[in-house]
C-alpha cells in the first residue's frame, strides 16, 4: 500500500514536470519567433563554496544561497527542484519550510515525519528574478512537541536539502550585446558555465609580440572570470572581403558565421586591416579598443584591440587588462598614454610583506558582525611563496572584538586557518564585553605560501535554554573590528625547488610578486592549441596574483636568458630541444620515465627528548610515521606520452632557476588537458616534480632528480633550512670546524708557551 502511494506520488510529480516542460516548449515556440529560449540547469551545490549539504537546525532556522543571472541574458523563468529530508520526530502540524526567492514567497513545504523525504518543484516567475545575484532563502519552523514547551536547540530539529540532487533550472533568452566598453566586465562572463572566447590574428605568422598580446588579453579575461573556467581558442582568420549587401556583416571583412564564441581580434593596424571595415581601421590612430556585435549572432561580441605600431598594440592590450571599471561608456576608444605608477615595490592586493603589521581593513576585512545567521567572517591575505622562517616564529593577531550579553559561557569564536582550527576566544563575560588588543599567536609554519584564509566562526549560545523557556536569540552577537591587526615577523625568502605544489598554490617561481620578469615562456610549437595552452597557463598563474602581469617574456626563440624557463607545446621525436636533455622524463625516440619501484623506510624512533617528555609529563606523543624515501626505476622504452599530458619541473643546468615543461605528444590537444587540469579538482592534487594526467582525470605524480634552494641572499636562513633538513650534515660541519679550531688553538697555545715560558 505504501509502495503504491509512493508510486502515485512519483507519478503526480513526473506529470507536473512534463507539464511544465511542455509549457516551456510552447512558450519557447511562441517566443522563438522573436528570440530563442535556452535552458541551463545547475545543482544547488554549484552555488555553494563546497559540496556540502544544506542543513537547517533548531526550532527556527534559515539558510541562504545566491545564484547569479548575467547581464547578457533575460530570464524567462526558473525552476527550483528541491529534494529534502526532515527529521522523523517533527510534528507535522507545526513544522514547515518556507522558500523565498529574493524575499518573494514561492512556496512552503510541510515537514512530514513519516514520509520524511520530499521532492518538490517550484516555478519561479521571471518577475521575481533580476540580473546580478539572486537570493534563495529557506526558512524552517521545526517542532517536536505540540506545545510551546520544547528545547529550541534540540538535536532532533533538523531538515536537510540535498544540494546535489536539488537543482535550479533557468530558462532564458540571450540579449544583444551592448556595444559599450564599460560593459566589458559584465559581458566577459555569461554566468552560465564555461566562458568561451576566441582570439583572432590577422597575420598568418605568429610573432613573439602576438604571443605577448594574447597572453595579456587572456589574463584580462581570466581576471574578470575569477573562478569561472575559460575555454580559449586561438585562430588565424583570412579576410573574405566585405559583405556589403548585408548591413550587419559589412562591418567586418570575414565570415563571422564560423564564430561560435565572443572574439577578440588583435594585431597592429597593418596586420588586421584586411579584416576590419574601413571606418574602424580609420579609427585606429593609436592604441585602440573597440567593441562590436557579431553578425548574425548579435548576442556575441567582437573586440578589436589594435594600434598603429606593435608598441601601441601592447598599450592597447594592457589597457584592456586594466579597464576594470565602468569606464569608458563608449563603443571604442584610443588610448593616449598609460601612466604606470613609479613607486616600488608594487604588490598584488592582500599581499603581505614580512616584518609589517596590517589592519584587517587593509586586507578588505571590515567590521564583521556575527550572529546566529551569519556566523562566519574571513580574512584573506597572500604570503610570499618562498617565505621561510625558523620554527618558533609567530604571527600575532591583536583582535579588537565585542560580544553581546546574556550568552552562555561556552560561547566562543573559533579561529581557523585554512580550514584547520588554531585557536578559540571564549566569550565568558555574562554581561558582554569589549576586548581591546586580545592577542593570539600562531606559528608561522602553520601558514601556507600564497593565499591564506583565517576564518572567525562564532558559536553563540543563549544563557536561557531548556523546555518551556522563551529563548531570546537576538542578543547572540559578536563583532571582530576592522581595526584589529595581524603582525608578521621578519622572515627570509627561501624555497626548495622544483616544487609543483608551490606552483599550484602560488605560481612560484614562474611568477613572483605579480612579476614574470625572471621567467621566459618558450613555445615549442606555434599551433593554436599550444598557443592557447601557454596563454591559459599564464592566465591561470596570474589569477593567483590578482592583478595582470605585464613584464612577461614569451617567445618562440631559443634564448634562455632568465633564471626560470617554461616550455610549452607538443613534442615529437623530431623536435626535442636540448634543454630537455636534463629532464627527469625524456621524450622522443626513446622515452625514459621513472616508475615507482620500492621505498626505503626510515623508522622515526622516539627521540630522547620525546621519551623524556612522555616519561616526565605523561604526555601522549603522537607516534611518528615512518619516513619513506621512494626509489624509482627509470625505464627506457619506445612508447611515449600518448594521450596523456606531462607537467614536470627540474633544475636548470644553464641558469639559477628551474625549468617547467608542459607537454603533450603529437596530435593530442594540450588545451584539453589543461582544461581538465584546471577546471576539476585535479589542480589541487599537483605535487612532486613530475605530474602526468589524462582527460579522465587519472593522474600520477613522482619526484625525481635534484633540488635547489632558491631565495634571497639570506645565507643564514638558507643554511637553516638546509640543515634542518639534513641535520647530520650540520653536525659534520660543526664538528669539523670545532676540530680545526681546537687544533689551531692548540698550536697557538703551544707556540705561546714556547715563546713565553721557555
Amino acid at each position, binding site marked *: 500500500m505504501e509502495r503504491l502511494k509512493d508510486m502515485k506520488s512519483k507519478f503526480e510529480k513526473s506529470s507536473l514536470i512534463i507539464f511544465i516542460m511542455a509549457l516551456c516548449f510552447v512558450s519557447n515556440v511562441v517566443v522563438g519567433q522573436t528570440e530563442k529560449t535556452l535552458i541551463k540547469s545547475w545543482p544547488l551545490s554549484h552555488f555553494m563554496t563546497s559540496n556540502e549539504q544544506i542543513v537547517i537546525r533548531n526550532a527556527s532556522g534559515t539558510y541562504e544561497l545566491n545564484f547569479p543571472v548575467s547581464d547578457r541574458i533575460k530570464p524567462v523563468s526558473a525552476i527550483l527542484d528541491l529534494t529534502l529530508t526532515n527529521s522523523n520526530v517533527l510534528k507535522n502540524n507545526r513544522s514547515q519550510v518556507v522558500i523565498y526567492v529574493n524575499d518573494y514567497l514561492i512556496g512552503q513545504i510541510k515537514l512530514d515525519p513519516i514520509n520524511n523525504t520530499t521532492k518538490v518543484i517550484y516555478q519561479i516567475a521571471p518577475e521575481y528574478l533580476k540580473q546580478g545575484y539572486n537570493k534563495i532563502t529557506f526558512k524552517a519552523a521545526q517542532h517536536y512537541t505540540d506545545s510551546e514547551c520544547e528545547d529550541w536547540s534540540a538535536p532532533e530539529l533538523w531538515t536537510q536539502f540535498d544540494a546535489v540532487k536539488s537543482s535550479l533550472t533557468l530558462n532564458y533568452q540571450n540579449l544583444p550585446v551592448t556595444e559599450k566598453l564599460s560593459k566589458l566586465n559584465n559581458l566577459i562572463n555569461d554566468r552560465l558555465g564555461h566562458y568561451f572566447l576566441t582570439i583572432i590574428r590577422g597575420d598568418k605568422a605568429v610573432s613573439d609580440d602576438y604571443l605577448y598580446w594574447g597572453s595579456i588579453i587572456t589574463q584580462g579575461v581570466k581576471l574578470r572570470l575569477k573562478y569561472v573556467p575559460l575555454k580559449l581558442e586561438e585562430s588565424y582568420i583570412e579576410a573574405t572581403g566585405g559583405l556589403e549587401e548585408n548591413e550587419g556583416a559589412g562591418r567586418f571583412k570575414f565570415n563571422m558565421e564560423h564564430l561560435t564564441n565572443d572574439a577578440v581580434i588583435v594585431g597592429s593596424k597593418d596586420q588586421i586591416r584586411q579584416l576590419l571595415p574601413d571606418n574602424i581601421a580609420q579609427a585606429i590612430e593609436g592604441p585602440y579598443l573597440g567593441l562590436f556585435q557579431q553578425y548574425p549572432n548579435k548576442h556575441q561580441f567582437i573586440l578589436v584591440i589594435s594600434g598603429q605600431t606593435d608598441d601601441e598594440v601592447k598599450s592597447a592590450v594592457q589597457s584592456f587588462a586594466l579597464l576594470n571599471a565602468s569606464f569608458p561608456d563608449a563603443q571604442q576608444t584610443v588610448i593616449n598614454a598609460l601612466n604606470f605608477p613609479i613607486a616600488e615595490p608594487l604588490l598584488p592586493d592582500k599581499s603581505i610583506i614580512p616584518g609589517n603589521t596590517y589592519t584587517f581593513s587593509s586586507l578588505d576585512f571590515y567590521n564583521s558582525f556575527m550572529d546566529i545567521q551569519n556566523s562566519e567572517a574571513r580574512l584573506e591575505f597572500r604570503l610570499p611563496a618562498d617565505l621561510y622562517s625558523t620554527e618558533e616564529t609567530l604571527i600575532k593577531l591583536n583582535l579588537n572584538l565585542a560580544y553581546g550579553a546574556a550568552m552562555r559561557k561556552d560561547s566562543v569564536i573559533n579561529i581557523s586557518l585554512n580550514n584547520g582550527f588554531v585557536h578559540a576566544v571564549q566569550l565568558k563575560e555574562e554581561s558582554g564585553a569589549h576586548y581591546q588588543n586580545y592577542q593570539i599567536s600562531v606559528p608561522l609554519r602553520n601558514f601556507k605560501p600564497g593565499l591564506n584564509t583565517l576564518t572567525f566562526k562564532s558559536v553563540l549560545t543563549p544563557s536561557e535554554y531548556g523546555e518551556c523557556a522563551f529563548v531570546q536569540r537576538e542578543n547572540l552577537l559578536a563583532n571582530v573590528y576592522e581595526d584589529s591587526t595581524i603582525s608578521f615577523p621578519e622572515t627570509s625568502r627561501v624555497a626548495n625547488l622544483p616544487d609543483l605544489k608551490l606552483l599550484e598554490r602560488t605560481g612560484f617561481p614562474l611568477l613572483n610578486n605579480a612579476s614574470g620578469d625572471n621567467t621566459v615562456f618558450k613555445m615549442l610549437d606555434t599551433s593554436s592549441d599550444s598557443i592557447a595552452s601557454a596563454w591559459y597557463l599564464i592566465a591561470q598563474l596570474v589569477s593567483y596574483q590578482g592583478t595582470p602581469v605585464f613584464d612577461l617574456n614569451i617567445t618562440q626563440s631559443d634564448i634562455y636568458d632568465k633564471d626560470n624557463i617554461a616550455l610549452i607545446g607538443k613534442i615529437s621525436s623530431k623536435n626535442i630541444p636540448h634543454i630537455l636533455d636534463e629532464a627527469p622524463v625524456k621524450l622522443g625516440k626513446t622515452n625514459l620515465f621513472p616508475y615507482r619501484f620500492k621505498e626505503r623506510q626510515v623508522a622515526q624512533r622516539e627521540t630522547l*627528548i620525546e621519551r623524556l617528555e612522555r616519561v616526565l609529563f605523561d604526555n601522549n606523543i603522537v607516534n611518528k610515521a615512518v619516513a619513506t624515501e621512494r626509489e624509482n626505476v627509470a625505464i627506457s622504452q619506445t612508447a611515449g606520452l600518448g594521450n596523456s599530458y606531462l607537467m614536470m619541473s627540474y633544475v636548470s643546468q644553464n641558469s639559477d632557476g628551474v625549468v617547467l615543461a608542459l607537454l603533450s605528444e603529437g596530435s593530442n590537444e594540450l588545451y584539453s588537458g589543461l582544461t581538465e587540469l584546471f577546471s576539476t579538482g585535479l589542480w589541487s592534487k599537483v605535487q612532486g616534480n613530475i605530474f602526468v594526467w589524462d582527460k579522465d582525470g587519472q593522474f600520477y605524480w613522482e619526484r625525481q632528480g635534484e633540488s635547489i634552494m632558491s631565495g634571497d641572499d639570506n645565507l643564514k636562513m638558507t643554511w637553516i633550512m638546509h640543515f634542518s633538513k639534513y641535520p647530520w650534515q650540520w653536525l659534520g660541519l660543526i664538528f669539523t670546524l670545532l676540530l680545526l679550531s*681546537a687544533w689551531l688553538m692548540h698550536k697557538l697555545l703551544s707556540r705561546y708557551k714556547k715563546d713565553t715560558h721557555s
Partner: protein
Amino acid sequence: MINWSQLFFIVFLYHFKVVIFLHGKNRLMTLILMLLMGGGLFFIASLRVDWYAQALISLFFLLILILLRRFKTGGFWRVLFVTISSFIVLRYFLWRINYTLSYQDFFSSIGATTLFLAELYGGLMFFLSVFVNIRPYQRTFIPLPEDTAKWPSVDVIIPTYNEPVDLVKITLAAATNIEYPKHKLNIYLLDDGATEQKLKSFNDDTRCAAKERQRQFLNLCSLLNVTYLNRKENVRAKAGNMNSALAHIHGDLILVLDADHAPSVDILTKTVGSFLADEKVFLVQTPHFFINPDPIEKNLDLFNRMPSENFMFYQAIQLGLDFWQSSFFCGSAAVLRRKAIDEIGGFRGVTITEDSETALILHSKGWKSHYVMYPLISGLQPETFTSFMIQRTRWAQGMVQNFIFHNPLLLPNLKIGQRIGYLSNMLFWFFPFARFVFLISPGLYLFFGLKIYNANFFDFLSYTVPYLAALLLTNHYLFSKVRWVFISEIYETMQSLFSIRAVWSVLKNPSHPEFLVTPKMETLDEDFISPLAQPFYWTIWITFFTVFFGIGRLFIYPEEQSLITITLFWAIFNLLLLLSALGALFEQKQRRLNPRIPVNIEANWLIRYTDTLTEKRIPILINDLSMGGSSFFCESELPENTETINTFIEISDDLGKTIEIYKAAITNSYNRKNGFIFGIKFIYSDIDEFVRIVRFVHGDSFRWIKIQELAGNDPGLIKSMIFMTKIGVYYGISHIKWVLSSTNGKIKRYEVKI
C-alpha cells in the same frame, strides 16, 4: 642548496692558512684567522636549525664531552673539550638573545631581562674561566746556584695588626727556621697593633693593650733575633704598614708572610731561584695552605673529605693565570723583588686588596710573575662564618675597587692574556648579584606568573639542558680534583646575601670600604647558630613557599605543566643549596686553639727512666700533629713505671739515625684495634725548643703536599652530587631541629661590621 665545493674550498683555504701561519710569524694572519674562526663558529652557533637537529648535535657533543672527560687527557684534547663546551654555551646564548627575549609585559620583561643579565654574567665568567684555564702551567721551581754568595739578600716581613701574640710567635719562629744564609736573611715584625698613635692613645684600654702587646713582641723578637718595627699611625692598613717598613729594610727580595702563615724551611730555596733566572720577575707566589677548616667545611664536616675551597684557586686557576703571565700577589707566601716595589713607590694601597693591585700595576709596567705550586706555608682560616664573611667581603670589595680604579681592559701595556686573567678575577666578585637573581627567579614565575624565560619544553631540552650539562661537565673536567660539584654554588649562595650589599656599596662609593682584619684563633665553646643566619631563614621560607606554590600551580595550570616542572626543579635545587647553607650556619663547637694536622710519620717513642737511667724505644706511628701536641698509634700500651712527663718523640732519618728529639708529656690514651692511641703535649723550656717544635710541625712542606694529594680526590660527578645532596639535607635539617629544640639564649650575638 649549499655549494659544497665552495665550502670545501673555504675549509681547505682555512687549513692552508693555518699551515702557513704556523710556519710563519705573521701576526696579522693570526688575527684574521682567529676572526675567521670565531666568526664562523659564531655564525654556525646562531643558526636556528629546527629543534630535533639541535637536540641531535647537543646529544652528540655531550657524549663527546663525557668521553673526553673520562680520559682526562691534556694538550689538544683539553682544548677540544673546552672548544666544544664553549660552542654549546655560545649557541645557548645566541638562542637566548635572538629568540627568548621578546616583550611579554612590563613586569615580565623586567624579570626576564634581569634573569638574562644574570645568565649573561654566568656565560661571560664561563668564557673567561675557560680562557684562563685552557692550559694550566705548572712550573718547577728553579734551584739556586751552589755558590751562596750569588744568592740575593731577603727581608722577611710579617705584618700584624691584632692577631694574638701566641699565633704570631709561631710564624716568627717558623721564619727563623727558614733555610737561608743567616747574613742574607733579615726578619721583621711589622706591628700595627702598637703604633705610636695607639701607644699615645687617650683611651686607656687601647693604650695599655698596645703597650702590653709591644712589650711582649719586643721580648719575643729579641729572643728570636727578629727586628721589631712599628710606625706612627695606622694609615692605609696592611699596605701602609709594609710601605712604612720599606724605609728600614734593604734586602734584594722581600718575603711577605701573614701573621698566621708559618713558612716551611724551604720557602726561599724553592722561590728565590726564579729571581736569579729572570731579572724581570717581580713576584714568586706560592699557594696558601691551611691546616684548619673554614667554617663551612667545619660545619658540614667536609674538611679533609674533599678538596678545600681554596684548592681551586691555588691549584688550578693560579696555574692558568701563570700561563698567561698574570698570576698575582695574594698578600702572603710570596717573594717580591724590592727594585720592582720601589719602582712603583711601594706597595699600592688605593684599594683594600693591596696585593692584587700591586701585582696588576707591576704587570702593566712589564714585570713578570711566577707561580710555584708548592705549598710553602701553613696558615689558618677563619673559624666562624662571621669571620669568613669579613674576609670574603674584604676580597670582594677590594677586587671591585680594583675593577673600578685599575680596570685591566683600560690599563696600558698589559698583554691580552693578562687583561683577561685579571678581568676574570675581578668580575668573579660580582657573583652575588647573579646568585641572588637565580635564587629569586623561580618565585617570579611560580608566585607571580611572570614570564621570565620564554621557551617551550623542546627548546629547553635542546638548548638549556645541554648548556647546563656542558657547564657541569666543563667544571668537572677542569676542576674535579680541586672542587667538587655544587661546592661553588654553596659557597656563592652563602656569600651572596651579604656580599651583595658590600659590593653595591663599593659601586656607589668606590673609596668607601675599610680594611677589616680577619679574626683568627677564635674558639667556640659550644654549638650555636651563626648570627648571620636570619636572611637565610627568610630566603628558605620564600623558596619553600615557591616550591609549594609550584606544586599547586602544576595542577591549576596543566597547560603549563612542562614549564612549571622545569621551574620547580630549579626551585628545589635552590632549596637544597639553601639547606646546605643553613647547615653551614650551624656553628659546631671548636675548643682546640691549635688545629691538628693529619700526618703519617714513623717515629720512636723514647721513654727515659730516671731511676734506672735507662731508656726504651717503642716504634710508633704519629697520626696528627699540632703546636699543642700530637697523637700517635702504638701497638703496646704504656709501659709500667713510665713517667708520663719524661717521654720523648724521636724522629730518625731513612738510615735510622736520630735527627730530632722532642720532649712530650702523655695526656691521654685509649684502646684501638690492634693497639693504643696516645695523646701527648709538647713540652719546651726555652725558645730554642719552641723553635724546634715549630720546625717539626710547620717546617716540612712535603707534608702539605701529601695532605693536598689525599684531599684532592675525585669521586666522579654523580657520586659527588649525591654526597653533596646528602650533606646539605642532613646538616640543614640538623640546623632546623636544633633551632626548634633550643632556646633563643643559645644564639650567640656578634657585633659584626661587614
